[in-house]
């Protein structure tokens, strides 16, 4: 008995050492590649980073390994220093960046829209306004033939159908942009719910990721949800037209997102902290957004240099690639401001 007790004390130590050895080996292999950049975060910017990465690898041989784990995850990973860059669709406040030793710069402009599944209604036929959308998501409007929806759509015959509200179940920059917009157009939303990557939804079903929301909306009769524009194009979903801040009726489009960005001066904002929802302008799309890359100021200079080189290449050579998948390029003055920002904060 005493012998077995002794053994019990000894063996685990040996095992631990072995496990540690294997782990160290695996870790060593993972970090040994000099020609690799790792990043993680926003699922929305994933298609763009991957497209740029493929072209960049062909040209330079440097591999960019990006994982779309969500904006919240991207912020957590760069905070922990496990990746070279994080990506988020929600900008971090200058105060937060300063406290955590981070910097951020915008990458591309995009937008999102409401999609729905109502028998007989085709893409672009439904017209909505911000306040009505807020009331739907607050569970005040519960039927599609509600007079407040009907008033916006005098030409449509709306059915007596329950509205199935769909939102994101995971933390998401898409949700931040959407709830930020609702907070701007509905005081009640701002007071009761607010804007964040996850909020306390008063009603509805939660889908995981843009794909999850799209899948729910396509399969549930009477559903409404919000997804990135790229997913609407890809899945040929029934989207809505919206009244913007100047009460003009607009369709979602790259031009509309860029019009929203044109009313914001990225170059003047501290750490590029800008929000593109509910901007003025006759052609502006009201639910526009942007995506940011986040770097650590105290990361090894070689690592930051590799990241900066990749995105500089993207800004200079990847803009038509971006446009081809409905990502709006940043205007040249903004790109110049980003380059100055790199020089100032990273010395690169």
């Amino acid at each position, binding site marked *: 008995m005493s012998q077995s007790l002794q053994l019990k004390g000894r063996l685990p130590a040996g095992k631990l050492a072995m496990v540690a050895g294997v782990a160290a080996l695996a870790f060593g292999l993972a970090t040994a590649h000099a020609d690799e950049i790792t990043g993680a975060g926003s699922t929305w910017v994933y298609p763009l980073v991957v497209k740029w990465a493929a072209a960049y690898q062909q040209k330079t041989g440097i591999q960019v390994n990006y994982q779309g784990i969500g904006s919240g995850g991207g912020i957590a990973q760069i905070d922990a220093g496990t990746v070279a860059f994080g990506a988020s669709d929600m900008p971090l406040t200058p105060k937060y960046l300063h406290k955590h030793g981070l910097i951020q710069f915008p990458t591309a402009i995009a937008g999102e829209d409401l999609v729905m599944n109502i028998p007989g209604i085709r893409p672009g036929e439904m017209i909505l306004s911000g306040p009505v959308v807020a009331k739907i998501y607050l569970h005040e409007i519960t039927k599609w033939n509600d007079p407040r929806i009907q008033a916006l759509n005098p030409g449509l015959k709306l059915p007596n159908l329950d509205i199935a509200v769909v939102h994101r179940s995971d933390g998401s920059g898409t949700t931040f942009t959407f709830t930020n917009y609702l907070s701007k157009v509905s005081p009640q939303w701002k007071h009761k719910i607010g804007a964040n990557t996850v909020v306390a939804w008063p009603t509805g079903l939660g889908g995981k990721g843009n794909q999850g929301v799209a899948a729910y909306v396509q399969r*549930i009769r009477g559903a409404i949800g919000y997804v990135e524009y790229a997913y609407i194009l890809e899945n040929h979903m029934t989207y809505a037209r919206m009244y913007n801040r100047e009460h003009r009726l607009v369709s979602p489009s790259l031009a509309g997102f860029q019009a929203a960005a044109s009313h914001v001066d990225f170059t003047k904002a501290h750490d590029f902290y800008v929000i593109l929802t509910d901007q003025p302008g006759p052609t502006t799309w009201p639910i526009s957004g942007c995506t940011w890359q986040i770097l650590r100021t105290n990361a090894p200079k070689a690592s930051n240099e590799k990241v900066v080189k990749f995105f500089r290449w993207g800004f200079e050579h990847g803009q038509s690639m971006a446009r081809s998948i409905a990502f709006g390029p940043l205007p040249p003055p903004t790109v110049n401001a980003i380059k100055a920002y790199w020089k100032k904060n990273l010395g690169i």
Partner: protein
Amino acid sequence: MEKPQLLSRLARLWDPLFKGTTAVLAYLVLALLVAICVALLHEGSQAFRTFGWHFLVSKAWDPANNRFGALIPIYGTLISSLIAIVIAVPVSFGIALFITELAPRWLRQPVSAAIELLAAIPSIIFGMWGLFTFAPWFSNYEPWISDHLGSIPGIGALFRGPPFGIGMMTAGIILAIMIIPFIASIMREVFLLTPPMLRESAYGVGATTWEVVRNVVLPYTRTAVAGGIFLGLGRALGETMAVTFVIGNAHSVSASLLNPGYSIAAALANEFTEAFSPLYKSSLIALGFILFIITFVILVLAKLLLLRLERAQGEST
């Protein structure tokens, strides 16, 4: 002269060494279990300290304002598993009964094999099938359920709701399909263990098939049958991906089983990677701890029940 002595000394050493190694491996499992429990409690302690007992009874889940409560996921986990058990137990019983007592001999092997294959399907396949195929189909029948069962006084409220096809009921049905193979194959195996002499004697005195199963097979196998049911329940409680697809992922309570809900495992799967504040993460880990405790309590209850059944059986024979 020397060689046999060395060999025998080696042999003497070999036995305790073998015993020690196997003991270490067995204790390692226990240590791991305790370590997981302690780690969950430690990481979740911030949530428990911040909210106290209210964490268990609060309906709040508001990451933006750092207010968290576990009631809705706990409720969803228990109710969806309960629905699954209510559906799966009679169906599994029927399957096992058919295979062991009624089916022609040539059919038994293929049906048993099919059930075991069902158990090997990854849970995400059930989730996708549930979302893409079952939910849209089921939503056509929900208005009927709502109209007919919804008007029954008392339990009617359970069945009134908008026909989304996604919610607690769908999750329960999908879970039932997933745990049927487990329960059915255990039932089948133990039914076969009933001594043929007992069965044949019962048939000999003129008992019907139902009477044989009711009075001979079931009493003989009830501990194992109960064990199988609890194994299925354990699986249902912790099932993640399939439930995430169809339960609706909504932090809201509703009397209706047709409305969307949430389960602990689904909440973890959805929100863990994106938990941005320490309290948020701690609350999710605290949810994991609660799931651990629920599963543990149910297993202990099952063990106690089995012990009691065994004792009762010992007394009666």
